[in-house]
């Protein structure tokens, strides 16, 4: 996923960015709402992590404005305001989840996955694709129907790429779309990075897991 993090506290923002990146997502981190607007104007984000008290405005007003403009991308509010009325106001403004500081980074990762699943059209964390049993919440893949099967381990980047295909089953995803999901602005991306990760996924999950549409992109195949 490509995630926009709006957080003005540099220590906290730095740790959140590292955590979300370690989960295999691409993160763009801004500290002001003005910068967030600039980013949203030029890139498409799968999820926004939004602090409420920012130097140039209130996160809640920004969220309301986005929803009023018809934007439906998921938003998780990260805030030190723990009052239930603040939380209700946040959810009423269109937030998908609300995390009160200080929070556990693992909790943030879990919420992020849950929101992503909800928007991927499949809130159930357990999926079966071909002979693979996939637990999106636990981020594990097990070969189905095999006794004492060991889970197949994926790196964060491999998982992020595979998740992109799971969230859009049957859809054709271009190379640049996949790069956007994996890398933040300014990250150096080798020209054959996507091919390398697709190759690794095929090796671990089966050659038919991702099919190539030559010159166009990739789509989830059959295993």
């Amino acid at each position, binding site marked *: 996923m490509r995630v926009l993090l709006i957080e003005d*506290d540099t*220590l*906290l923002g*730095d*740790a*959140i960015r*590292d*955590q979300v990146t*370690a989960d295999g997502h691409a993160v763009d981190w801004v500290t002001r709402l003005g910068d967030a607007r600039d980013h949203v104007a030029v890139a498409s984000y799968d999820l926004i992590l939004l602090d409420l*008290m920012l130097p140039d405005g209130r996160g809640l007003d920004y969220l309301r404005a986005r929803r009023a403009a018809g934007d439906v991308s998921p938003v998780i509010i990260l805030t*030190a*305001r*723990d*009052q*239930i*009325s*603040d*939380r*209700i106001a946040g959810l009423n403004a269109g937030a998908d989840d609300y995390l*009160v*500081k*200080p*929070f*556990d*980074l*693992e909790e943030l990762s879990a919420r992020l996955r849950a929101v992503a699943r909800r928007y991927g059209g499949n809130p159930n964390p357990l999926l079966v694709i071909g002979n693979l049993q996939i637990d999106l919440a636990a981020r594990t893949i097990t070969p189905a129907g095999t006794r004492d099967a060991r889970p197949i381990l994926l790196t964060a980047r491999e998982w992020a790429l595979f998740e992109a295909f799971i969230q859009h089953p049957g859809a054709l995803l271009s190379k640049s779309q996949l790069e956007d999901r994996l890398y933040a602005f300014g990250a150096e991306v080798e020209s054959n990075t996507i091919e390398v990760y697709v190759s690794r996924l095929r090796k671990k999950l089966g050659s038919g897991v991702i099919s190539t549409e030559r010159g166009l992109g990739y789509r989830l195949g059959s295993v």
Partner: protein
Amino acid sequence: MNLRPRNSLQARLSRSIAVGVTILWLAATLGTVLSLRHEMDEVFDSALQELAQRVLPLAYQEVLNRDTPGNDNRAAPVGEHDETLIYIVRDDRGTVLLRSHDADPAVFPDALLTGFQTTNQFRFYTVSAISDTLYVTAADPLAHRRAAIKQATRTMLWPLALLLPLSLLGVWLTVRLTLRPVVAFRDEIGARGLGNLAPVDGAALPEEISPLADAVNTLIARLRRALDAERGFTASSAHELRTPIAAALAQTQRLVAELPPGAILTRAQGIETGLKRLARLSSKLLELAKAEGAGLISETAQDLVPVFALVVADFNAGSRLWITIPPDPVLSVIDTDAFAVLARNLIENALTHGAEDEPVSAVLTDDRILIVTNGGPALDQATLNRLRKPFERASLAPGTGLGLGIAEAIAKGCGATFDLISPVQGQIDGFQVRVRLPDIAKNP
């Protein structure tokens, strides 16, 4: 809030004016009676004088025309009647020469003095003639005069007896109508809940009392500013305190995630545990600050059901937490944030200190009772009393020891009842907290 007047201004004004009017009426009546008596005395005296002066020439003629001089001749009555005015004709030696037919010479004074004289029973007027050899004394019984005055007074008092209650009724109605804006003002203040900080309407109040409404509104505005400042401070201090803790915890967790196994990782994990404890304790202290603040009552009753649902949704207790949420709204004037803190602390307390192999039940009833029950051994009264104090725990389970104290402070602050029960009714063990939430604002 009980603003019922112990000493009603309306009653005091009505009483004072009624007493004043009554005294005024009675004084006016007394003055009239005295004046009437004076005037009647003048009339009676004039009649007495007229009688004596008229009788004198007639008596003189009568005495001269007598064939044989004699004493005490009575004038024959012209017809049967009660004689009110009597007279007597005497010579200079006091010998009665003539008298009216009912006149008793014994009641007349012996001294022959001209002019008016008064005894206990009669008023006399004496006139003389023929070089003071013939005296005519007319007498009027004072009882007659008194009866006349009494009759006149009675005649005046009867209409007064009717008029006075009417006047008092008029006074009462006037006072009531005049004080109607004041009574409406009192009722408005009396009827409003403690949390209602809207300005009172003093537009219809009389000039003498309108400064009171201004003062009340000024006080309400100051109270609102103080409450807003308190809420703002709580929110700001929460932000200022939580953000650096969140940053430190997040950085430490990243460190833990990135460090290879070893002593440094163990140390980093120790810091993480300490930071989590600090986060919990700071959170509880902020909640305690709110619990002991003044913003525990909202201006209007609000539905607690969605708040309760959000609070219980935060607990990842799985099947251990049994929840009962009523289908219909449960309205209470407790501040929703305060209720959330109250419910969260009670459930946390039950999950932390209750028997791990027994469920925790959190019930919000439709008659505004929050009941949180957990398993565990029965606690004696001394332990229950000790649990109400901050930093006290009944078990060795980890916890800040502030949960019940925060919950009780909120309950007291908003006028709710707060009962700790152990063993649970119908059981031999268990622990239960029952909070009956206020429907309307009450003095805590």
